């Protein structure tokens, strides 16, 4: 594939060639017939100068336009974009004309990323909370056990205390 810049230069050259071919010296001398008959050499020189000047001006204009819009770089980057997409056949997406609609797909990746991040945070926190909940259940169990232990010790102690009182009563007798 020919680069767009080269294609542009070729087209302008072809345009100039054809324009020059159309404005041939014969045509030129026919139009300025009487001057040509009076001064044939001069006519040839003026014609040559005309053609050279026209071509130079047009080429200079093209160079200016290329520089003005940085056209070469832009066209080369377009070549690259087209090259990258060369395998595709079906028509590509084009703006729908409804900004809100077109914006959705542009924002989608970021919303998807936000959703995934939030999901991850929620899952992580849920896991942590499950661990905490397990720890709390274990802790509650432990508190229960401690309470049972204390209850047992307390009852034993009270039983002892009762026996003590009975014994002392006996002793006192």
């Amino acid at each position, binding site marked *: 594939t020919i680069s*767009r810049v080269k294609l542009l230069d070729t087209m302008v050259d072809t345009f100039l060639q*054809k*324009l020059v071919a159309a404005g041939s010296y014969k045509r030129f001398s026919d139009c300025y017939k009487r*001057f040509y008959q009076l001064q044939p050499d001069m006519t040839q020189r003026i014609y040559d100068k005309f053609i050279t000047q026209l071509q130079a001006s047009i080429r200079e204009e093209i160079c200016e336009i290329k520089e003005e819009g940085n056209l070469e770089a832009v066209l080369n980057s377009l070549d690259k974009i087209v090259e990258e997409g060369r395998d595709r056949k079906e028509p590509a997406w084009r*703006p729908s004309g409804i900004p809100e609609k077109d914006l959705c*797909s542009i924002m989608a990746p970021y919303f998807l990323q936000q*959703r995934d991040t939030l999901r991850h945070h929620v899952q992580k926190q849920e896991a*942590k909370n499950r661990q*905490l909940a397990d720890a709390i259940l274990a802790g509650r169990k432990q508190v229960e056990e401690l309470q049972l232990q204390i209850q047992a*010790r307390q009852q034993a102690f009270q039983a002892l205390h009762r026996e003590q009182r009975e014994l002392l009563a006996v002793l006192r007798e």
Partner: protein
Amino acid sequence: SVDPMTYEAQFFGFTPQTCMLRIYIAFQDYLFEVMQAVEQVILKKLDGIPGCEISPVQIRKCTEKFLCFMKGRFDNLFGKMEELFLQLILRIPPHILLPEDKCQESHPCSEEEIQLLQQEIEQLQEKYKTELRTREALLAELEEQKIVQAKLRQTLTLFDELENVGRDRGTNDFREGLVFLVQNSRKLQNIRDNVERESK
């Protein structure tokens, strides 16, 4: 119907037709300028020829004739060049997507889908806040449990210390301590009875 070539304008920053118009006007101006220069040169040359019968009006007619022909060919050729420019150079092929629009195809998303996504995000945010509040509550209970367990252990320690007191006295628990006390007191009674009898 004019094809506004908006996608191309999005890429180039100008409409291709305007670009071509700019080139056309510039080329046309040059053609006119050069023709004018040719006519000036010829008139000047004629001035230098004594007794010349060719008048400036005649030269002007020659110029117009040549220019009219050239302009016709110019427009025809330029029309063809413009067509090629707009087809081959300043056009984004229909199957090509510009880089800034890549996600239109990598993440095609309708308005409904984006709304659902935003709802899901809001729900997740609420859920996350709930989980954080749950975490606070759980941590608070954990703290509470620590205090309660410390208190309960303190109580158990108290019972242990009581037992230890007993142990210090040679008995390994309170009950034995008490029995020990009773035996001792009986021994004391026996001793006292003996002493009383002896003394009688």
